[in-house]
Structure formats: C-alpha cells, structure tokens
C-alpha cells in the first residue's frame, strides 16, 4: 500500500508538472499562430488540453507542428468555457500519467519505466517552456519595437532607419511571425535602390516565410520575384515565377488579391509574344481576363 501511495502521489505530481508545462508552452506558442491583436483566450482552454495530451509525443518525435495543427483544428471548433483553463491542463496531465501507470500496473518494470519517462518528459517540458518563454519574451519586445519603428513613416522602405530596423529584426528573430513584413520592407527598399538581386533574394525569403503555400502572400512573392528576374534579364526565370503567381491565385476561390494573378498572366502573355509564341500569349490573355473577372476584390 505504501508503494502504491508513493507511486500515486508521484504520478499525480508528474501529471501536474507535465500539465502546467504544457499549458505554459501553449500560452507562449499560441500567440505566434494568432493574428496580431487577436484575443489570446479564444479557444485556449481546449487547445491547451490538446497540447497537454499530445506534448510527450510531440517532444519525443518532433512532430509538434503537425499534432498542434490537428489539435487546434479540432478543439478550435468547441466553445470555450474560460474557467476550464486553470484546471483542465494539470488535470488532464495527471489523468494521462495515472492512466499510463495504471495500464502497466501488472508489470512493475514497465511501470517504473513509464514513470521515469514521464518525469523526464515533464522536466524537458519545463526546460523547453522556460527557454521558449525567454526567447519569446525577447521576440515580443522586438516585435513591438519593430512596429513602433515602422509606424513612424507611411513608406518605411524609403526610411533608412526603418530599413535597418527591418534587417536587424530579420537577422535576430528569424522565427517571428512578423518576419515576412520585415522582409517585404527590405525587398522593397532593395528594389527602390535598384539592387534587383538583393530584392529577388528578399522576396524569395518573404515567400518562404508563409507556412501555407496557397496564400496570396506566396503569389505576391512569386510575382515580385518574376519582376526582379525580368529586370535582371532572365526571361526564363521570370516566366516561371509569373506562372507560380497565377497558379496560386487561380486555385483560390475567395477572389482575394486577384490582381496578382491577372497581372501575372498579362506579363506571361507579353513574354510569350516576345518569345514568338502568339497562341500561348492568347491563352494567357484569356487567363488574365478570367482571373480578374472571377476574382473581384
């Protein structure tokens, strides 16, 4: 009985530590997935519970982004009773830890291993969340400074101070969700200074900073890269990126940023004519009209 009591208390403690660590991690990580200024509490409780349940597996196999996406997608649909937040995650962690231990109770060696693993995972979560908290705290502060700097001018890409701030922000906080905005400014500044090679590189990085390849930002990056390549004298590369920009916009049914697809198709038509391919040019002209008609903003 004494052993069982000791084990039970240990399991509960591990579960609470685990749950709290998961909650801390979720609270730190979730703002990165939310739109700037969006309420932090929306759906947080269920997402935190999901993160708690999935945390050991996420940490063990490095699949946190995938599991996180699944859990956020699923739990995000459930209404959010805010009072659950404080209790749910430690409770869930405790239940999971106890459940695993109970499931293995007939095998002492297995139970010992399971509890050991849980302690290890709990400790790892605490270390990871503390580390992330420090990093994220620094990043949030840098983001605020970045926005303050950008708000000083309507055209930050023309302000040397803002451009320098954007470059520093990109270099020091490569994982920030606002990296794309900083890269947009550095790319536009490079374009304005006539350095198309640097602009092309930054538009490339701008496009890569979107997790979803079907968002208009990716199309805009492709379109901007194409323009850079055209000025640099490589029609082949320009055509490839114009094609990508049309492809992304064409696949969207919401009609946002249709001008990118339309302008991309028009540019392709122009390039096809310059290459002596009038029938393909007509195809792209038709495409430009279709995209602009079906995707009214």
């Amino acid at each position, binding site marked *: 009985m004494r052993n069982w009591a000791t084990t039970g208390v240990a399991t509960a403690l591990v579960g609470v530590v685990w749950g709290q660590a998961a909650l801390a991690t979720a609270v730190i990580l979730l703002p990165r997935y939310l739109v700037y200024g969006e309420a932090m509490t929306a759906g947080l409780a269920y997402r935190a519970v999901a993160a708690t349940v999935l945390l050991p597996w996420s940490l063990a196999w490095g699949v946190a982004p995938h599991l996180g996406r699944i859990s956020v997608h699923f739990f995000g649909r459930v209404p959010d009773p805010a009072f659950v937040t404080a209790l749910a995650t430690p409770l869930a962690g405790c239940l999971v830890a106890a459940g695993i231990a109970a499931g293995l109770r007939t095998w002492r060696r297995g139970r010992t291993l399971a509890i050991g693993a849980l302690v290890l995972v709990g400790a790892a979560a605490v270390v990871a969340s503390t580390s992330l908290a420090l990093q994220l705290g620094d990043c949030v502060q840098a983001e605020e400074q970045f926005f303050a700097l950008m708000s000083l001018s309507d055209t930050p890409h023309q302000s040397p101070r803002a451009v320098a701030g954007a470059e520093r922000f990109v270099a020091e906080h490569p994982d920030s969700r606002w990296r794309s905005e900083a890269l947009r400014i550095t790319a536009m500044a490079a374009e304005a200074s006539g350095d198309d090679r640097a602009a092309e590189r930054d538009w490339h990085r701008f496009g890569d900073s979107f997790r979803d390849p079907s968002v208009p930002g990716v199309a805009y990056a492709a379109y901007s890269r194409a323009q850079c390549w055209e000025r*640099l004298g490589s029609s082949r590369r320009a055509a490839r990126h114009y094609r990508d920009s049309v492809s992304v916009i064409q696949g969207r049914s919401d009609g946002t940023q249709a001008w990118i697809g339309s302008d991309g198709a028009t540019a392709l038509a122009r390039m096809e004519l310059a290459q002596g391919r009038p029938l393909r040019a007509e195809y792209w002209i038709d495409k430009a009209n279709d995209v602009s008609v079906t995707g009214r903003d």
Partner: protein
Amino acid sequence: MRMKNVTWKHGVAVGIAAVMVASTASALVVVLGKTPSASADEARMRCVRALRSNRSWRAKYVETENGSDGKRSVVRTEVTVRQPGDYRVVVRERDDRGREVVSTSIRSGDTLYTRRIEDDGTPVLHVMKGVRPSLGVEMDNALGETVRSVADATSLRVAGSERIRGKAAYKLELAPNRFVWTDAQSGLPVREREVSGATVVREVSFDSFEADPVVTDADFSVASLGSVESTVVEDLGFRPVDAPAQAWGLLGFKPVSLGVPTGYQVLEQGYCDPSVSPGDREPEAAFVTLLSDGTNSLLVTQTLRPGLGDAMYPVPADEPDAPQEVDLGGHRAVVYSDAAGGQLTLARRDILICVEGNVPDEALIAFGNTIR
C-alpha cells in the same frame, strides 16, 4: 502473476520479429508492385529530349479547367508541327450555348492566321503579323509549355509512379500544387495537373503523340482554313531586315554585332518597331537574331537599357539554382541553365543582350565570346 513469466527477452524477440515482418512486407510491396524507379534529373532529361528529338510531330491533348466561379471548360487541341516555327493548331471547345466551336491556326514565318467563329456565328480570319521568331524547340502549345516547365522546375522530384491509360508513368512534382506524369518508356508528358488543396484547378491530358506524321502543303495553306466573312489584322511590330544596319535609325540604338559560330547560319533577324504598340502593350525596341545549325538554335535579343553599363550584378554562390558568372574577355556575363537549354545575359554599351539556346552552357559562353 502470469506477467512475471514474460521476460524482457520475450519483448526483444517480439520486437525483432515485428521488424522482420515489416521489412519483408516492404520488400514484397516493392518487388510485386514492379515500381519503376527514376531520378528526377533522369526523368527531366528524358522528357525534354523526347520532344526535342522530333522536328515533325502531331499531338492531341484535352485541357480541362475548373474556374473559381464553378465553371468548367474543356478544350480539345490537335497540334501538327511540320518543322519548328511552322505549325497548325486546331482547337475545339463549346461556347456558352453548348455548341462546338472550332478555331484553326496556321503559323507561316512571322505571320499567324487564325480562322475563328465569332459569337454571332460569323467566321473571321485573324491575321497576326510581325510575330517575333521563336526558339524552335520551345513550341507554341501546351505540350511545349509543359516540357519547358519540367525543364526549368527548380525543385523537381519524382513523387511516385502510376499507370495511366495502361502504361507506366512517373509522377513528377514541379511545385507543391503542380504535377506532371511522364511516360516511363518514351519520357513524354501524359498528364499535367494543377491542384488547390483537394481541388483540381487545371488538367491537361496528352492523349496521343505521333512522330513524323504525314502532312501536305495543302494542310498548311491559308486556303485550307476555309471561307471567312471578314479579316482582322493585328501588327505585333517585328520587321525582318537583311542586315542590322538597316534597323539603326528605326531602333534608336545600334545593335551589337554578333559572330556566327561555325556550322550556324542566321535564319532570321529583324527589329521590333518601337512605334508599334500591339494591343494595349507597351512598345519595345529590340533587335532579334535567330541562328541555327539545323539541330540547335540560338535566339539573341538586344534591348536598350540606359545605365546598365557592364556592371550587371553580384551572383550569389549559396543558392541551389544560382546563375553562373562567367568572364567574357574582361566583361562579366551570367548564365542561367536548365534542362531545356540556357540563357546568357550580358551588357554592352547600355544594351542588354540575352542569348537563349537549346545548347550546353559551354556553347552559350563560346557564342558570348564572339560578341563585340
């Protein structure tokens, strides 16, 4: 209590057995499935060569597009290429009232003739004259465009193999939303598909390809297009000349003189009239030269770029598809290459010179050295 009889040795034995079963099953899947294997580069080269090795061919394909407004269009096309730059294209599609509409185009030199049925049912001949010369291998049709896309896709990978119309085909991923299937035997594209999530946005099914088809001069005569009620002429502005000097005054700049590599001859040269603005497009002053040795072609385009000088731009070495910087007698040039050929870009006296060709980089650089 029974669990006490289960030792860690049993666990290890079970684990080893599971691994053995899994590996055997995987091997069986590979062997029984007769999965053809290919590297992306191999599949790419075979695709490009398959089309390029045929000067004369006929192909049929069906292009299906699902618009974001829910409309679906199906276009059936038959392309007959007698020789590069000399082709006939028949397009069949349905209009808004469900009637089949047939448009036929014939390219002859720098003119494209198209007989088209207008919305009111009247047949009209559209004449597009002053079309620039084209690098022959890069065909003016969807098949050529698909091959070109395979050739210059930077992150091409073989995404698997499937059977299409009963024949083995490689599935190539050009981009996360774009795929091309190539025939495992011939290398030619058999299908292209663009997707958005789970939705197919565009699909081209290349149904047949015939090398060296029987064609007659009559098939390529304008008279074969049939009767029309009116003619519409559009000028794209290209003017052939016998010598570059004839274009100086009209272009606004003096084109750089080009050497002609051994075995090559100038097939066509001319200028783009800067006073002509085709459609709504900006006019562009350019001098164009097409050279060929009978198999390979070089297309040289010269445009005025004041302020460009000879500086060009720095070439980064850390990018996978970074262009190659070369020295042409003390002048910098940049070579972009892909499986279909390459492009050499250089500047001379504020003139940007782009040389495109279906030739190795060395041949492009050798040609660049002849530019004075």
